[in-house]
């Protein structure tokens, strides 16, 4: 017997799923940019995106950094 879904019908919209999926990817991607291990940067280098992503990281970092009493 097929169980009825507990999720409201509107939430099955592919567009909503795509938007939330992009949000998940974005959150994880920013995490990797800021705290990614050397292996991540090695992989990025292989994709020839190292300079671009380093620039993004340099742009992002000041939003989440501050020194004592600054």
């Amino acid at each position, binding site marked *: 017997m097929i169980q009825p*879904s*507990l*999720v409201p019908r509107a*939430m*099955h919209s*592919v567009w909503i*799923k*795509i938007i*939330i*999926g992009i*949000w*998940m*990817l974005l*959150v*994880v991607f*920013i*995490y*990797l940019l*800021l*705290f*990614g*291990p*050397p*292996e*991540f940067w090695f992989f990025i280098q292989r994709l020839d995106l190292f300079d671009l992503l380093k620039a993004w990281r340099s742009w*992002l*970092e000041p*939003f*989440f*950094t*501050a*020194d*004592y*009493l*600054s």
Partner: protein
Amino acid sequence: MIQAIFSLPLYIIMPVVLIGYSAACSGAGILFLKLFGAHADRMERISAGTILATGFVLGQGILASIWLLLALGGWFSIEIVGTFCFIVTVVGLYIGRGLFSGLKNQVASIWRELREDTWGWQLIAGLTVTLCLLWVTSLGRPLLGDGSAFYMALGKLTAYSHRLIPLPGFEGFTNVGLQGELHFAALTALHSPEAAKLFSWPTISAAGIILASLGRVVGMGRRGQWLTLSMLFSSSAVVSLSGDGKVDLFAVALGLAAYYWAVQIRFARTKIALLLTGLFSGFSIIAKLSYAPVMVPTIALLVLWGYEAEFKNKGQWRSTFRSFIGGCTVILAGLLLAFIPHFAKNGLLYHNPISPIGSGGIGWLNQTWFGPEVTRWILLTYPLALTYGSYWAQYGNLSPLILAFLPLMFYLPRPRPFFSSPLVAITLVALAGIGVWIIYNPSVFSPRYILALLLLLILLPARCAEFVSLNDQRPRLLAMGVIVSTIVVLIAGGLSFLDQVFFPSATIQYLARTMDECKRDGEYCRAMSRINRDAESGDRVYVASYQHYWLRGDLLQCANNQNDPFSSGAVGEQMWLELYQNGFKYLLIDESTHGFMVERLDLDHVPKWVKLKLKYNTMPLSVYEMNFDNPPSTVQPAACQRLPSSTTWEVMLP
């Protein structure tokens, strides 16, 4: 015989002491549960794992209180600590033996369910367990910072002197609550400072079990519980505290246990649940005083929620109120029971039981870390700052999975009635607690200050992600997104913790004794080891540094302290004269933090009657041996003497 046991290889003695001491904590906790709750091992609806984790964390609180009282009396010797640990282990574990068969069944059931799940979830579970196990390799992590400056150093001082005295150089700070420090002291007394370094591992494992049990209370299944643990072990705010000698994780375990039992008040209002709520709240506040402003209101809110259903019944208002007051009295009794040893310690050492409140050195309670502009920015971006922040002294973040899975809450069916849902209540209480912290101390932004509360925020996204993973329909983008995001974060987290927190290779070398303590810990250890090698028993060392941990036990007790009568403006020859009069033989200067000492001593123009011998010099540390030839003083210099038939050393002023 005891010496023969302690001379076994480190890879045998360290795990034996760590497991044995953890068993002693569990034994003490189970014994307490048995004494105060006759059927603790048969508490309905509560799993054996949860009761064992509760017993372990409770035992930590109880043992720390007993150690504190023993240390205040000067009876903190290996004979007493070892015998007590042995008795509570044997008695407690014998009484609670039924729990272990329950735990075995529980583990078998988890294993069976995992085998039936998809490979993606099996991978998530495997990576989570791996991250948890990697914690052991923080044994190879260099000991630096606050851990070696105060927490581990106080433990070592207590273990060697058999009594609790303020740590030299930190006399104004020893009034903090002591929980983790006393476990470090006990494990050091049991000849295993390595086990002390790793004791945060069983502690965070117990905290993880309690958090996953809270997950069960809010309606999670196994997937949700695995996600909860994934988020816990991918939070750098948690993992960064692994093996660094800090004590924040003790407060996390105690705080989460307090929240677990406060939630239980609604479902199983037994006297033991009320007492445990009070005890755990008290112990967690003692373990981390910064918990006080958030713990009190959030526990109060959860207790009110526990009585909500009865309060709604207007007809029985009077009897409900009586029951509520009775419940609050039991909670307060538990709170007081947890506080008494702490009050006794501060009463004896500082003549003020509620110190630091009412004491001079209260500055660290009232801090400002950032200016108004940065503070405003942090507050405006709070969830992002918790996830991505690298602010001064922040010391780690929450897992990005919390933020990533948060929008999935729109998929979760609305509970009816809304506020009766444990998930809603816990999440709102956590948010209220964060609100209180923001009002109380807006510019102090550091997850570890309120970590137990912040970890409650894991439950909502974990529950939502689990729900979506079970109910998503084709195209199953979100279910796939949950698995992929979790796996990526766990792998990336694990890799970035390598060589920052986890040091597998150094740990193996350390356990095999091919790497010594100083090779692991660096310059401070080398400088102090040089003093340890040359100094005679009871020689006085003037330590111009925040670090003390590596000094020998007797030298640690004889180091400069606030009772040394130095005049505040002494410089040059006068300073050297006072060093002589106070009986100092060695001088350690850490120019990175105490560079002013070089100027005060005018090291380029040392008086002729001072003979300095440079023993160690690697920037920023220098060690000198001081000899005084006909000093211009008739005063007999102070000396540090061992008290008759004891290991306690005291400075005798002339």
